[in-house]
């Protein structure tokens, strides 16, 4: 892992398009501003990890635990 020390109001560039701005540090919290292309989703890590876990759990479902699609399915838009 790359470790960089930054002071309040300093920034980090990820490539040319993504800016991480350390805006303010108060007590044990840091306010971070992120400027990234709008197509790039940005998540708090704990939310991302929890949704990933739910998606993986959902994807473990067996075919017979839920209704099976008809053999000619897939036409739904």
């Amino acid at each position, binding site marked *: 892992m790359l470790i960089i020390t930054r002071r309040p109001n300093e920034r980090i560039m990820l490539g040319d398009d993504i800016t991480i701005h350390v805006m303010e540090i108060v007590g044990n919290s840091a306010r971070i501003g992120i400027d990234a292309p709008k197509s790039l989703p940005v998540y708090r890590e704990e*939310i991302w990890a929890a*949704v*990933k876990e739910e998606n993986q759990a959902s994807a473990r479902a067996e075919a017979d635990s839920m209704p099976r699609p008809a053999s000619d399915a897939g036409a739904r838009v």
Partner: protein
Amino acid sequence: MPLTIDTTRFGPLEIAGEAVIEFPAGLIGLGGSRYALLANDENAAIVWLQSIDDPSLALPVANPWQFFADYEVKLSDSEAERIGITDPAAADVYVTVRATQAIEDCTANLRAPIVVSAGRGWQVINESEHAPMRAALFAGISEPVTAETAA
């Protein structure tokens, strides 16, 4: 032009080209870029979101309003801008279902719904305060859901 995929769960399936949904960012933590919805019929309460890129990857998903009548999706400005949809109610919305051995323990993820519009799909974070990650799927239904509980 239809695609034929040999799915792990359902065997070979023919997917019509217009049924393919492009997910520019995939599903959170799962990736994949192309999926299709597989249903028994148009009104099925639970359908399968089958990956076209990975035949073994499929998730049961539900229309949230069939189970949670007052469900609400609120998007942050940046999320709405990312997907280009400001009113999720105008799109098709699905929630992933976590299946369990006992059907009454099945849960739905109301926090991270899947929004589908015009052949494109995104999994988004719902900012609503009433959107748990694991909502009991059948809790909101007062009618018995199986013949056994009805007996």
